[in-house]
Every structure is written in structure tokens, then in C-alpha cells.
């Protein structure tokens, strides 16, 4: 593989600029992976890696991914929150790479809440 250079970065920028003008109405779903000490120790990193790979493979641009700290339910980690715009957030517990694949494909893409993995509906209060 040829070495990646600053020029490649410039080319990517041009390409992205062109694509961006064709698209709007971003940010349909926000997925939060809880990454406190407890989350990381119980496998949140693998969940995050899987989620990023799935988003990349599905080529969707309206899903944003973020992380947050511990929310005090360490025993149920890894926790993932899926927020579809205009709907209450859904928290999933004991998530692993297989579960996140299913959650991504069925809930994030198709809007079908994966009830067996759900911990709670609604927001928590942190800090």
C-alpha cells in the first residue's frame, strides 16, 4: 500500500465536500456507549469497535456515535443507549458484539426495539 500523505487528506476533503452538498437532514440516531472503568473492563471497547465496523459496512451517515462515563449501574455493563430522534432513549444492558450487531441492524436501522436486551426506557440523571 502506498504511504498515506497530507495530499491524500486534501483529496478526501475535496471528496467529502462534494458529497456533503448533496446530502442534508443528518443525525437521525445517536448511539452512546457507556465507557467508564466498569464499562471498559466488561468489554465496552469491543462493543464500540463492532458498532463502528457495522456503521461503516452499512454506509449510513445519519448515525452518530458517542461515549459517556459510568452511570452507576456497573454490574449491568456494557451499557448502550440508542436515541432515535423524537423518541425516548432506550438503554440496553449486558451488550456484547453480537447483541450490538442485532441492535444496530434491527433498532437503529429498522426502528424495532430489541426488548429482550432492554434495561430501561428514558433518561438517567448523571453527575
Amino acid at each position, binding site marked *: 500500500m502506498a504511504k498515506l500523505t497530507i495530499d491524500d*487528506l486534501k483529496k478526501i476533503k475535496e471528496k467529502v465536500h462534494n458529497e456533503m452538498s448533496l446530502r442534508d437532514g443528518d443525525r437521525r440516531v445517536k448511539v452512546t456507549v457507556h465507557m467508564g*472503568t466498569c464499562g471498559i473492563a466488561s468489554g465496552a471497547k469491543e462493543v464500540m*469497535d463492532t458498532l463502528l465496523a457495522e456503521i461503516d459496512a452499512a454506509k449510513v451517515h445519519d448515525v452518530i456515535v458517542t461515549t459517556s*462515563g459510568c452511570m452507576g449501574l456497573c454490574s449491568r455493563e456494557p451499557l448502550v443507549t440508542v436515541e432515535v430522534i423524537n423518541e425516548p432513549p432506550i438503554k440496553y444492558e449486558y451488550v456484547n458484539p453480537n447483541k450490538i450487531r442485532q441492535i444496530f441492524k434491527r433498532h437503529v436501522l429498522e426502528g424495532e426495539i430489541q426488548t429482550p436486551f432492554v434495561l430501561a426506557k428514558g433518561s438517567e440523571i448523571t453527575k
Partner: protein
Amino acid sequence: MLTLSDHILDITENSIRAGAKRIEICIDEDSENDLLTVEIQDDGHGMSPDAVQKVVDPFYTTKTVRRVGLGLPLLKDAAERSGGTFRLKSQENCGTTVKATFGLRHLDRQPLGAIINVIVILIISNSDIDFFYKHRHNDRRFEMDTREIRKEIEDVPINHPQIIKYIRGTMEEGLREIEPEA
């Protein structure tokens, strides 16, 4: 925590919570002295001298959702288990530096793990923070600075999939060249 990357992700989360704008992660492998150093430096709001004394106590935490704070104690333990040391320097309103050393070839030293994934996760989920990654293996070194990338891409967000792909690519290339031992 099975790998050093897990610790790095965890400790960096502290820096983010401290409102850091730039976080530097330095990994230094020194084969001659059998030493592996991991240093995380931030420009967050820092800690009082009193808090610095308490951070390695697992029952000290600034969070209110639970009564334990295990991030730093676990890192300290991982370092000391491999014959290394743990040091924390912090100044209020200036920032915090966490430095852990490990015996590079010590049997009980945790492997470095998926460091590229950790850096990528950090950049994606904290697109407003600048990350600087430096990895040295004896006389070979690799550096990645999101500030420089940001300069080139102008208004394209740093967490855009194409940019992330580029960052992942440069890191894979760079680390292949320096052939990390850890």
C-alpha cells in the same frame, strides 16, 4: 482491564471529564533499559494537592453515582505488578499528567492491545478535543496530531468516516514501521 489500551482509554476519560482541550498520549518502549512508559497529559482543570494524595485510593472518587473510583488504582496496580512505577502530577487550572512505567519484558506486564482502536474511539466520540499520539520504539518514532489533520480538512468534521479511515490508515502504517514490542 486486560490490556494497557483499556487503561489508556479509561484514564483519558478522566481528562475529558476534567474539561481538557488537548490530550497527549505518549508510549515509549526502551528495550535497552527494559522499560515501557505510558504517559497521558491533559490541559484540564487539574486537581488540588489534597485530591492528588487520594486518587489511588479505590474508595476516592469525584463522581456521585457510586462510591468507588477504580481507574487510577487499577493502572497503578498493573504498573507495579510488572515492576514499574506510577506517578501523578497535577496542578489546579493547568492540567494533569499520569505516568506509568512497566517492565517491558516482564511476564506480568499486560499487552498493549488495540491502541489504534482506542485512539479512534477517542477521536470519534470527542470530536472537539485534540489528541496527540506519540509512540517511540527505541530509535523509531511515530506521531499523530489531530490538530495538524484539522488544519488540512478545514470544515470537514474530524469524526467523518473518511477522515477516521485516513487516521486509522496512517496509524496502522506508522505502527507497522516502528514494530512495537509491546
